[in-house]
């Protein structure tokens, strides 16, 4: 049996969840609403995060474009994704919403610009 401690982020109450996982069976203590159970399940089976970063512009001046993934990314894939983002150079101009990267490292990841860098 695996045990986890997580803080629920669904609302500002920030319930401290104690989670026990045995195969597919998950028991949660410390939650004060059903959203805590759903959050606990997601966190111990397939934790995901929205990733944000800046990507260098392909320009003579120092310019960095803020970017984000359009959906939460499996946490295990974040280091590979960041490595890729930090090695990229983006041609200007860039507008919020422009797709800068697709399918890296897995097919479900899309990275878009959130600003122009200027």
């Amino acid at each position: 049996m695996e045990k986890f401690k997580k803080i629920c982020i669904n609302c500002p109450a920030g319930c401290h969840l104690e989670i026990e996982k045995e195969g597919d069976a998950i028991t949660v203590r410390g939650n004060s609403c059903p959203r805590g159970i759903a959050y606990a399940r997601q966190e111990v089976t397939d934790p995901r995060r929205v990733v944000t970063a800046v990507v260098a512009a392909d320009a003579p001046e120092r310019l960095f474009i803020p970017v984000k993934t359009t959906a939460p990314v499996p946490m295990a894939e974040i280091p590979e994704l960041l490595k890729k983002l930090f090695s990229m150079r983006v041609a200007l101009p860039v507008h919020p919403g422009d797709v800068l990267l697709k399918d890296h490292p897995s097919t479900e990841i899309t990275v878009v610009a959130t600003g122009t860098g200027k």
Partner: protein
Amino acid sequence: MKTRTADIAVIGGGAAGLTAAARCAAAGKKTLLIERLSRPGGVLQQCIHSGFGIHRFNEELTGPEYAHRVLTQAEEAGAEILLNATVMQIDGTGEVKTLTVYSRDEGVLLIRARAVILAMGCRERCRGNLGIPGERTAGIFNAGLAQKLINEQGLLPGTRAVIAGSGDIGLIMARRLSWCGVKVACVIEIMPYPAGLSRNIAQCLEDFDIPLLLSHTLTGIYGKKRVEYVTIAPLVNGVPDLAQEKKITCDTILFSVGLVPENELSRACGIELDPVTNGPRVDSSLMTNIPGIFSCGNVLHVHDLVDFVSDEADRAADSAVAWAAGERPGEAAITVKAGKNLRYTVPHRAEAGKTNHFYMRASTVMDKAELRVTSPEGRIIFSKKLRYVKPAEMISAAFPCPEESTYTFTLENC
């Protein structure tokens, strides 16, 4: 010297200023916003993480996206935005206010407006405000400065960091540094509870196994040219216990120890400030003691969510629009006081006979509590149950206000 006129002048082009300018212009007022930097958006531009706008736009936006949205609203409504221009002085006497502005492009300008909205935001407290002993060496940053360096200029502040203070910017920076390959040794917090939002504790510290040392303080910063290590100690009865002092190797320290509303301009023109919030004392129309000068956002009191900044900016804008049209608000005769378990309430005066909006901040962590508003005779005017109370989370309340000399807000155990 050039002179410009407007119905409403807005000082500061961050979330509060842009939201207020958009609303004033949408109401048909000639609105001029003055921003000292070369691009609008304020601190939102360096807050590239997501989590903004959940209440206001029902969407999770990043800082630059939120800025883009309110900037577009302001531009489309017809507000004029003056960049690279710093307001040096406000003359608030008389019906028409005069701002003295130093503009990069236009030199010294005089701006005359019927109403003024103060939206200058806040700045970070720094090491000097805390009196941390030790060397004055390279490698000591405010968390927000480090955020600007990384997110706007692509520069890393160091390789191994200690973060002093568990405010939200410090927590967000713990994740940013970790993602950028900088090792975060620990976050230390002087209080027995975290200063930041719990979602940030979860996603910025626990995801990276970064220890949060509560009831700890920095006792020294050491290094010749660059920070080499810091010493920390637990607090016992409010005093650092030096017998338990520990050394932590690092080349970088980030301070995330609170924000101070930037009110030099307000103070110089005679606006009364609240020593607890460090912001102007306002009535329920968000007007300061100088008629026609309003205030909103972090210059009024430090908020934790930008959504509430924009809500407050809307209200300041509505009041300024009415004022510029010649309407005068009723007298805000009710004195508002923060009592038990509350650090402050804003506004400081309320108007009887209408619904007033209040923001307040708790002084302690409570499990379950009741917010209670009482008259001088002890009559309960308003009450509301709260599932949790934390100093990090602002509390809001809105209710129709009957006439009384004083309202006292308290948080009671229940």
